């Protein structure tokens, strides 16, 4: 077993315990949970809602929500970081709905140069960042996922990355990529389907390799 895998398992277990203790009203555990995860969740939220003040408001809501819902976290069903990140993403997407009247500065691709359509957003955001979560990104799950992302066409990858990382709707992705809405919708749908099939195949390979 490689070190990153063990690291992932250990971190997951530690976060699960912190969540369980938070669910029992342990404030110290909750503070530690916040210390260990808030910078990751803020990165996720900021990517979707670029307004720092709003993003921090969202982050506050997320953790108040986590404190109240920590009892419902089921370590047998979910990875703690997946659970937390999902809550943060949902809140961030909701915050876009609320602040729709305000202009959003989200374009980081081909904003100035129409010839940059081939820019691969996924590559630009996947730069390894040094930090406490860095090791996690090299864990098995993430590695399989990155491999599967590589298998998508450039257009599929870009459409999924814009939607997932930046929280863009189908319409906004179409605008960014200067493509018809229907084309973008089908790119996203097919990309997600390919990812699912690829990840399931990878999991099966791992299972076979594990037995052999």
């Amino acid at each position, binding site marked *: 077993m490689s070190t990153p895998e063990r690291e992932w398992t250990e971190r997951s277990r530690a976060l699960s315990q912190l969540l369980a203790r938070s*669910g*029992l*009203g*342990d*404030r*110290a555990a909750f*503070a530690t949970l*916040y210390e260990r995860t*808030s*910078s*990751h969740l*803020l*990165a*996720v939220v900021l*990517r*979707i809602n670029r307004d720092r003040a709003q993003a*921090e408001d969202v*982050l*506050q809501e997320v953790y*108040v929500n986590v*404190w*109240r819902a920590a*009892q*419902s976290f089921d370590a047998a*069903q*979910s*990875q703690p*970081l*997946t659970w937390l*990140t*999902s809550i943060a*993403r949902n809140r961030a*997407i909701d915050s876009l*709905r609320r602040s729709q009247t305000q202009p959003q500065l989200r374009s980081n691709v081909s904003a100035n140069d129409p010839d940059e359509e081939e820019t691969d957003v996924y590559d630009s955001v*996947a730069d390894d*960042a040094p*930090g*406490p*979560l860095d090791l*996690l990104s090299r*864990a098995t*799950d*993430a590695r399989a*996922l*990155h491999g599967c*992302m590589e298998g998508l066409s450039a257009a599929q990858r870009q459409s*999924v990355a814009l*939607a*997932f*990382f930046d929280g*863009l*709707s*189908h319409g906004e*992705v179409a605008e960014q990529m200067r493509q018809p809405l229907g084309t973008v919708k089908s790119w*996203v*749908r097919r990309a*997600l389907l390919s*990812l*699912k099939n690829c*990840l399931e195949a990878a999991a099966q390979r791992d299972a076979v390799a594990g037995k052999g």
Partner: protein
Amino acid sequence: MDYSRPELADRLAAEYVAGTLRGPARQRFETLLPAHPQLRHAVRAWQDRLMPLTLAMEPQQPSPAVWKRIEQRIGPAPAPQAAAPTGSWRQLAFWRGLAGLASTAAIVLAVVLAVPQPAQPPIIVVLGPAAPPADGGVSTASFVASISPDGRSMVTRPVANVRLESNRSLELWAVPKARAGQPAEAPRSLGVVSADGATVVQRGKVLDDVDALALSLEPGGGSPTGKPTGPILYVGKLPAAPKR
């Protein structure tokens, strides 16, 4: 739409998790989630698939003000005796065992937190439907509340499946004992409890002079007035527990 169709459930879940399901469709989907296990399962699978992508992002340190505001929102830190993790974990296991023995229905109960004299069993209150069943049948238990002997903490847990609309909450109330010659006191809120899992209730000495526990249906987040506003769904009388 038939959300039990696996392909449809999976496609909607994928778009929900990827973030492309938006606006009213997203809200509708979130409303449906609690009642559709197949959708929930699909959502969880997609979260497992996609969330690791976020691990490549560069962490962003929030300003210290965020944690301060969170602390203000979640209320003051509990009294020191409630915060001894090792002790309460050992006691959790101990209480689980005791509660399991005490329960004939093989319900797993958990009573937690610092209990000064763990030799005493928890007080168990069974909450049943407030109104008798329409068909005249036997009403069944719906919630169980197990209370630590010192009355400081309580765990509630649904026995049967309780389905709630997403914009509704169940709120727990302590119904005070009637005193001779005095007007009945209003129920005291013990907070919102989960309809599909255990909830730990800590309100100091919650059970002094309490006759019964009741659960009412309230708007999401609990009663806006501090008094029950919705129908009382479940009630349970406290046993005439021997006081120390």
